[in-house]
């Protein structure tokens, strides 16, 4: 039968009972290798759901400490964690949820020097980064290494989700060619973020990851979903690969 223990069969019973997932899908989750970049607003729900779902091996890269202003939305961390490294705090919470999951912790910032060796260890990448330079670095590296990636962004009452099959579907640069100049796009610290919006977007990212792993349904490829909490509406924008894209176009300038 499936390579699942009795405990796993019970723990994941509500997955296994779904015909689209079943024991085979749960086993795929057990074999999965997912890298989550950032354990903040988006990373929190992503890590919580992936851990609970039994996503076999989860890599977590984060270089910040828990600040009191994080707690309004970064639900992986608790008040007693103030001042702790987010990677440690995240790991502790995740282990409490599901000790069966293997967690790799990287207490560092993602840079051009560490990104490629890191990507080699994982099949799917989740973007929960907090700045544009890292977001573009992640996009470019994932396109080059043909990794599947679930992109997410949040600001004020809005969110954005896009799933990218590196080198095959439209990438982030196909839609947003260059990072905005520093200072033109406000950060959550400057413009604010409704806490639960991070939960909505991060949970959608987690859903996409679970779909990618199990092969259920249709990924959000070549589509960008914008969430507007004020209207409580979703707007889907079709995204096409841009032949002039500097990283996945016909004559890439970023190599």
């Amino acid at each position: 039968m499936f390579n699942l223990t009795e405990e796993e069969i019970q723990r994941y019973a509500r997955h296994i009972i779904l015909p689209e997932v079943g024991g085979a899908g749960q086993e795929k989750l057990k074999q999965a290798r997912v890298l989550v970049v950032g354990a903040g607003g988006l990373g929190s729900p992503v890590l919580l759901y992936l851990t609970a779902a039994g996503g076999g091996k989860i890599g977590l890269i984060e270089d910040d400490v828990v600040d009191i202003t994080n707690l309004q939305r970064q639900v992986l961390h608790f008040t007693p964690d103030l001042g702790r490294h987010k990677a440690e705090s995240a790991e502790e919470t995740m282990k409490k949820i599901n000790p069966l999951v293997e967690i790799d912790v990287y207490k560092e910032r993602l840079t051009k020097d560490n990104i490629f060796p890191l990507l080699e260890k994982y099949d799917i990448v989740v973007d929960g980064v907090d700045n544009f330079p890292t977001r573009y670095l992640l996009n470019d590296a994932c396109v080059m290494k043909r990794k599947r990636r679930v992109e997410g962004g949040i600001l004020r009452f809005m969110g954005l989700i896009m799933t990218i099959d590196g080198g095959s579907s439209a990438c982030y640069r196909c839609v947003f060619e260059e990072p905005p100049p520093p200072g033109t796009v406000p950060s959550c610290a400057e413009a604010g973020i409704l806490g639960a919006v991070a939960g909505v977007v991060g949970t959608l990212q987690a859903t996409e990851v679970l779909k990618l792993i199990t092969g259920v349904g249709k990924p959000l490829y070549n589509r960008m979903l914008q969430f507007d909490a004020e209207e409580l509406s979703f707007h889907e924008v079709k995204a096409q690969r841009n032949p002039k894209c500097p990283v996945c176009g016909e004559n890439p300038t970023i190599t």
Partner: protein
Amino acid sequence: MAGIGLDAEKDSKVLSFETKCREGEAQTLSLVVQGKKVTYRGPADMRSLLESRGENTLYANVRINGEVLNRRDFENIPIAEGDEIDILYFMGGGIVQPD
């Protein structure tokens, strides 16, 4: 980024928009904006449309009839009857620049 969501900024945008309209540049256009049919009355350029909707034009790309425009000179982007327009917001997360 100064003035996000400040009334003063919104007021000045509305004011400049109304001024343009008074100058007789206004047109009435049927558009599809963010998937919804709208009737827009104002000057036929992207900046005026965005301002009429109270959008912060600094942090968006626009997509007209399927083509994404990676540019910020919205005043030079004409809009026309029947255009399908999506506003694609940049959303970066917590900080503007890593240290």
